[in-house]
């Protein structure tokens, strides 16, 4: 997998964590269990550093998809995109293991093969 795609996946994992810590419902649940979430600023700094390492065009594409779908990068299970559940064309799998970024032709999400 290309390094920039690895960085993008790490960015998404971080974004999900930040969102959970910022959204009232989930943060209240976590605090009720006893978790402290006072390192949010640290996470934002880490996110900025990580994002800066990703080429702008790819990062912008991710940001647009994340703004629309919340989760921009989606795993492929079987022959379907788990974002829109549309079957991926056979041609997809012929290039699936190359180092190129993969895109669901139906919903536009970025695809990750675990």
């Amino acid at each position: 997998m290309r390094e920039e795609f690895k960085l993008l996946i790490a960015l998404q994992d971080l974004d999900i964590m930040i969102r959970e810590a910022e959204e009232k419902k989930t943060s209240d649940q976590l605090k009720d269990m006893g978790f402290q979430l006072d390192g949010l600023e640290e996470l934002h700094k880490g996110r900025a550093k990580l994002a800066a390492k990703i080429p702008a065009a790819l990062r912008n594409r991710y940001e647009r998809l994340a703004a629309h779908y919340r989760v921009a990068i989606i795993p492929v299970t079987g022959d379907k995109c788990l974002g829109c559940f549309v079957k991926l064309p056979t041609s997809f799998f012929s290039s699936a293991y190359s180092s190129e970024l993969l895109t669901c032709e139906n919903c536009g999400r970025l695809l990750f093969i675990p």
Partner: protein
Amino acid sequence: MTVKAREDMGSNKLASLFQEDLCIFSLRSRKKASVLQEMVRHLKAAGKITDEHFILEMLKNRESLGSTGLGLGVAFPHGRSIAIPGLTVLFARSASGVDFEALDGKPTRIFFLILAPSEKGAETYLSLLSRLTALVQQPKTLKKLYDVKDFETLQEVLGGDEG
């Protein structure tokens, strides 16, 4: 929480969410970072994940947000990642305890590692986390967890939770 997620969690006995190959009854690591690494490596060795890097990074970031060592000798490292195919729980125990920067400053002896996929909502793991954090508030159960050395005993201890 969705109705389906609530039903899924509600119908599961706590003990049934644990697997024998996802238990470490004697952690070798003595430091926080290496404990996380040992648990993630164990997941990979058990075939539950393909890439250690993403999970380890996510868990380190989670600890930056605030230690998941809640005190009483128990920690709950947790989070969501695209590299996790489904709800995954790993139990680990350290006989001597580890400095996990717990909120009460005491060594951590029991670890519940809880991981969930990113494409699903937080409710996929928060319900389980809630049940486990409540469970360790029971002094008798906690004492038994400190001493658990095999999967059968773990199942018995967790089986006390009616879910």
